[in-house]
């Protein structure tokens, strides 16, 4: 039952074949069985999830009209507040904090009767591409437990691949939904910036952060996308417009006559052989499905990584200033006579990990008087150029495509001491955040050289998110018929797995 897609689970729930309590319990059992090895979860809310499931079953029994995903369980990235449930962002500094309020995403999940199983592991404050930066230990990739599950949302992606949950919420600042999806053989979508409310998403980089759906199929992602998206007056950057019709697009999966632009700069040198092979194969399948493949150029993408590592740290240096031990979270050194300043200093020293400190220092420097124009100011100009590159490319193509990441999952510890190598993982995903457009990663097969999953990225213009779902669904269908089954059916079984 736990290997079904979310939409299959939803129809079994609707027909009465299974109950939400049963389905939720099955996932809790799987978590008990495999999470000691995977470590996707930081907190499992057994009682809360079962109580919510029982309530949904009762509603269904009483004949109430329910939303499409009612009763289906979900894993929530630990960067989203949920009232009364520990929210750590993978950091020591928030250990023990229980938010007194629900994020808008959680409010929408509850409104849709989606069962929240617990909180998933992540790189501290979403800073990282491997989930190794979590203060609570790394998450392991279910395809190969010695490898990283991507990051920052490695917990959410691993939970899907390990059948611990059929749906998950991620957040994506530079690739934190898409890169974990790529390396775990799952689907991850970063909606248009402003498409899903950021209220209650603990900010890393406010102008780049975007929550989105993670799932095992394109349709499941679309169903979850529609459940969480929409205008929110509590987030002034939230877009006040109807949610793109992503479910309809995922259901039709029609690419006939669509122009698909291959970004010249996001391929070739630096991309693993098996990654390139799977990418070429996907292009052929899309062409066979009736799409027209064109090449587009985005000359300014080469500056995207550098600009990103000025803007994101600058914003994080300010966003993370609130963790000062005064009102919540960790407090260190509060001895008799200690000043507030020394408590703040000690708490931040002890509470933040190395990568977080590295970025706070970078950002503080980039915003400093005398350096602002050269660093933050120039980075903003690059951001405008990248947006212009996208606008030009979208004149030639309806969607753009690239491999999601240059490589498959690397070994835990392999890049831990080489931040620059780590940052390069996000070279193909970062431009999407810089321009605020939509991006999706879906599995495109296995790299022959290492037997690990490869991701295919689809990018769509602002608030045209339905386009990536059309293309994603078409490619998924073509691949499934080629493989005869979903990619995850070939994942090695975990010890104890049901």
């Amino acid at each position, binding site marked *: 039952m736990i290997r079904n897609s979310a939409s299959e689970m939803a129809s079994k729930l609707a027909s009465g074949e299974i109950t939400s309590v049963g389905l939720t319990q099955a996932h809790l059992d799987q978590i008990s069985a495999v999470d000691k090895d995977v470590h996707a979860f930081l907190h499992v809310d057994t009682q809360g999830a079962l109580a919510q499931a029982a309530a949904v079953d009762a509603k269904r029994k009483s004949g109430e009209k329910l939303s499409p995903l009612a009763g289906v369980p979900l894993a929530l990235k630990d960067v*989203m*507040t949920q009232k009364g449930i520990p*929210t750590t*962002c993978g950091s020591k500094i*928030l250990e023990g*904090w229980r*938010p*007194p*309020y629900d*994020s808008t995403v959680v409010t929408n999940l509850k409104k849709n009767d989606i069962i929240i199983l617990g909180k998933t592991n992540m790189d501290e404050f979403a800073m990282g591409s491997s989930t190794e930066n979590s203060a609570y230990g790394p998450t392991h990739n279910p395809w190969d437990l010695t490898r990283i599950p991507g990051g920052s949302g490695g917990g959410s992606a691993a939970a899907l691949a390990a059948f611990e949950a059929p749906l998950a919420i991620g957040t994506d600042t530079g690739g934190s939904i898409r890169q974990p999806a790529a390396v775990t053989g799952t689907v991850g979508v970063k909606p248009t910036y402003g498409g899903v409310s*950021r*209220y*209650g*998403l*603990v*900010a890393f*980089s*406010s*102008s780049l952060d975007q929550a989105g759906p993670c799932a095992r199929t394109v349709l499941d992602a679309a169903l979850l996308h529609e459940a969480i998206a929409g205008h929110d*007056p*509590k*987030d*002034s*950057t939230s877009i006040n417009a109807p949610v793109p019709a992503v479910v309809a697009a995922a259901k039709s999966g029609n690419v006939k006559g669509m122009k698909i632009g291959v970004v010249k700069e996001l391929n070739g040198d630096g991309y693993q052989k098996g990654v390139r092979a799977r990418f070429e194969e996907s292009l052929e399948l899309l062409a066979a499905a009736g799409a027209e493949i064109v090449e587009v150029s985005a000359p300014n993408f080469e500056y995207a990584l550098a600009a990103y590592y000025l803007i994101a740290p*600058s*914003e994080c*240096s*300010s966003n993370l*200033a*609130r*963790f*000062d031990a*005064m*009102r*919540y979270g960790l407090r260190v050194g509060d001895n008799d006579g200690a000043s*507030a*300043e020394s408590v*703040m200093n000690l708490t931040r020293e002890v509470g933040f990990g190395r990568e977080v400190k590295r970025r706070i220092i970078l950002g*503080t420097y980039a*915003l*400093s*008087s005398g350096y*602002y124009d050269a660093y*933050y100011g120039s980075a903003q100009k690059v951001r405008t150029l990248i947006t212009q590159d996208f606008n030009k490319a979208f004149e030639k193509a309806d969607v753009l495509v690239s491999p999601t990441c240059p490589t498959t999952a690397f070994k835990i510890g392999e890049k831990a001491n080489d931040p620059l190598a780590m940052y390069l993982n996000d070279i193909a995903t970062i431009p999407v955040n810089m321009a605020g457009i939509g991006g999706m990663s879906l599995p495109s097969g296995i790299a022959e050289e290492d037997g690990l999953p490869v991701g295919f990225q689809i990018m769509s213009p602002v608030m045209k998110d339905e386009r990536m779902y059309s293309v994603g669904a078409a490619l998924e269908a073509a691949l499934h018929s080629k493989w005869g089954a979903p990619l995850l059916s070939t994942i090695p079984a975990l010890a104890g797995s049901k």
Partner: protein
Amino acid sequence: MSLTYEEVVAKYEPVLGLEVHVELNTNSKMFCGCSTIFGAEPNTQTCPVCLALPGALPTVNEKAIESTIKIGLALNCSIAPFSRFARKNYFYPDMPKNFQISQYDEPICVNGYVDVEIETDEGPKVFRIEVERVHMEEDTGKSLHVGGATGRIHGAEYSLLDYNRAGIPLVEIVTKIVPGTGKYAPEVAKAYVAELRDILRSLGVSDVKMEQGSLRCDANVSLRLIGSDVLGTRSETKNVNSLRSVERAIRGEMIRHAERLNNGERVVQETRHFQEDTGLTRSGRSKEQAEDYRYFPEPDLVPVAPDAAWIEQLRAALPERPSIHRKRLQEQWAVPDKEMSAMINADVLDVVEATVALGADPAKARSWWLGEISRIANEKDVAIKNLPISATDVAEIVALVNAGELTDKLARQVVEGVIAGEGKPSAVIAARGIKVVNDDSALMAAIERACAGQPETAQKVRDGHLPAAGALIGMVMKDTKGQADAAKVRALLLAHLGQSEG
């Protein structure tokens, strides 16, 4: 070497810069829905946004934007079609986010001015104060330092934090440098702050209570030798919490700077705190090394882009400028300058105007509010506006006096009664049994009793010595318990004794 003010201004020219912070009177805070009511229990008016809980986001209070635009328009500013909020980053325990959302290089209102008139040796003179910018920001929380001297952080045992004030909308009004005021600098500054206060009050955007901190002034002062065009080093005096203090603080700083300069010492660029008791300033934080606030555009808020038509609507609805309004009233009422100032200083102009609007004669209305009612307010040590007597009450009393139904003396009793909480004038009159004795026969009987009681005095009056009548009138008034009209008693008495007014 101690200098007199005259010696200072004979040698140096002061250059001013004034920053006024105004707390807006919106019902909710700048970036969240929390209440802004003053004086609530600590930390009861807070939420995830103003406590900066992880994940919370600000949203802009539309009313605050409207109020700020109104202020900008009233100060003759241009309203920016596009302005932005920025983050001012620094750590302080009473600032929950450890940054303040403020406007930085893209403020909402720019390039305005305020004209103020003051009395000079050459008669009234107008000084134009140029306004550089008007921008929006949020207030911080409050720290209460316990156990140290005079509530300062230094030496305190512990501190308490109250975040009720965190996020209250503030508007900052910053002048350009103000040269050319010479020896009148302190008075010009005071007049400017007074004018701002009146304008803000007329707009209804703030309580403008300096004593509660809803209007706060920081005064920048520097001196340069007369004739020089090089600016001197400035000091910034904070905590200036009354109009009189504005004047005193600037005068004091001018003398302090001049003494240092005369002694060949440097003026230190620093923040200074004004001390109400001594009228002097004390050194605060040095600004020699400018703090780096690492401003950058607030990514959580979209730019403010007010609709041009809306701005024109607000402009058309602006009230008359208080100074112009006052001039118009003064002409209409034909009041001398001195009386006008008295009303302004006693803060009764509005209520006098309201009383006149209800039909009272301007002179009568003024004399009640400035006279009897002010006296009672002083006695009770209460602001006139907080006395339970309204323009309607006073207008009614004036009308009753005009109709001859009350004498001035009785009217004072009615005013007293209203202020004592005995109800509206009619209720006081009824309850106290106040009424004018108009019945001539009753009066005549009292006059006859008086003359019979003091026959010698009565004879003096008959003999033409009119001043003697006073004693008899007094007796009549006493006999009638003060309810008779004294003028009428005098006329009847004189007639009774065969005399008439010369």
